């Protein structure tokens, strides 16, 4: 059995969090440049320019792209032939998060209790999901999720008879309601199937996939393209000031579901779509 020390996990997560808050991944930067090319509105174009300027500045000065450095979500795919030594993985991730947010001068946006609302002052804890997979590696997918867009996300238990049309309508309605609040242009993660919580998880995982990577199933790849086209007819545009580019990417993930149900979750992400996949 391969041994992996938690210090290695801690270092990897620390570096990844410092990086994603100051520098966008290539798929997201490219999607922004593509969007800028397509935008017809003059105001929309100038907002794209500001966004690109902002992102370059953040990278060059190593300062956060957006002041909302988010709540950290981690998906840990733990190879079943790995033996983790030196302590607890969740502890290591949270410790890395605490250190990265302090050393990076990132904003502390987490409150320790949802009703009492006292800031934890260290952005801890992360939301951590685990999966056991084959192999002797640990793969960690990370995002720093901003809440302007998280707040506009929705979930609905559709009737099976509503089918594809039900899904398309619900996604369209959700993006339309998000409007300018979610910092458009947006990325849309959609989870279809499973149970209530599974659909929600899938929608977050969909946002962690590369923005330009289509679903491997041709039916869903086609639905992703159709939705992208449809959502860009809403006219919301960059900053909500009108335009052709409301959405830069749509990713769908699915799971088998019950004969009686069709859960759909729509996780909305702003143009500051911070994600990374690292291996330990």
């Amino acid at each position, binding site marked *: 059995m391969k041994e992996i020390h938690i210090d290695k996990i801690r270092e990897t997560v620390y570096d990844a969090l410092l990086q994603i808050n100051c520098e966008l991944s290539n798929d997201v930067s490219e999607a922004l440049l593509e969007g800028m090319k397509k935008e017809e509105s003059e105001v929309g174009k100038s907002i794209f320019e500001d966004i690109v300027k902002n992102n370059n500045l953040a990278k060059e000065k190593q300062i956060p792209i957006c002041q909302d450095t988010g709540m950290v979500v981690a998906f840990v795919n733990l190879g079943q032939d790995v033996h983790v030594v030196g302590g607890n993985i969740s502890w290591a991730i949270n410790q890395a998060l605490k250190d990265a947010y302090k050393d990076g001068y990132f*904003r502390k946006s987490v409150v320790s209790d949802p009703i009492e609302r006292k800031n934890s002052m260290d952005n801890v804890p992360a939301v951590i999901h685990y999966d056991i997979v084959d192999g002797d590696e640990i793969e960690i997918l990370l995002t720093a999720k901003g809440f302007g867009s998280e707040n506009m996300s929705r979930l609905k238990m559709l009737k099976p008879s509503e089918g594809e049309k039900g899904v398309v309508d619900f996604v369209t309605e959700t993006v339309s309601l998000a409007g300018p609040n979610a910092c458009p242009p947006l990325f849309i993660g959609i989870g279809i199937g499973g149970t209530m919580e599974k659909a929600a998880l899938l929608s977050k995982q969909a946002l962690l996939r590369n923005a330009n990577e289509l679903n491997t199933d041709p039916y869903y790849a086609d639905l992703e393209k159709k939705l992208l086209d449809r959502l860009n007819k809403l006219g919301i545009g960059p900053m909500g000031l009108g335009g052709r580019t409301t959405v830069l990417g749509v990713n769908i993930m699915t799971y088998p579901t019950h004969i009686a149900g069709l859960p759909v979750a729509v996780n909305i992400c702003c143009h500051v779509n911070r994600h990374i996949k690292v291996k330990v």
Partner: protein
Amino acid sequence: MKEIIVDLPLDEDVISSLKAGDRVLLNGTIYTARDAAHKKMVEEMEKGRPLPIDIKNQTIYYAGPCPAKPGDIIGSIGPTTAGRMDSYAPRLIEKGLKGMIGKGERDDAVIDAMRKHKAVYFGAVGGAGALLKESVVSAEVVAYEELGTEAIRRLKVEGFPAVVIIDSSGENLYKTQAKKYKRTLED
């Protein structure tokens, strides 16, 4: 499009001249306040106590910055969603607040108060915190330090770029612009 230079605090003539869609560069003093600071301010008002800052004629920026790196004035600072302050904003507008900077829709009660008391809602580019930080020339915490990023800060800005989203007549840019680009969705 040409930007209009706007000095803060806003004066009455300027407020009435600003129209939804105008691109502006703001110069002068603004105060940051978001969820927690608004809750506290309104609680103080309900108890009949004075506010920690005199908001008469002032502009509030709905924002919570990142901490400043050594040698910097402030960290990244872009707008947060204004709608979360809608339940508090009319009370502050009645007390003399003249400008708000944020992102996203406002509710009818806020727009009514803006129309009645002549106030302006500006939008800044959401997610452009690193760029907006550049126009901040000084920053100090003036109230509720214990709230961390949510404390009230007095900022001096020079050339802070914004767009008039809702003007003092209630005209709303979000409503008029998205319509221009909306196409019919075939089923």
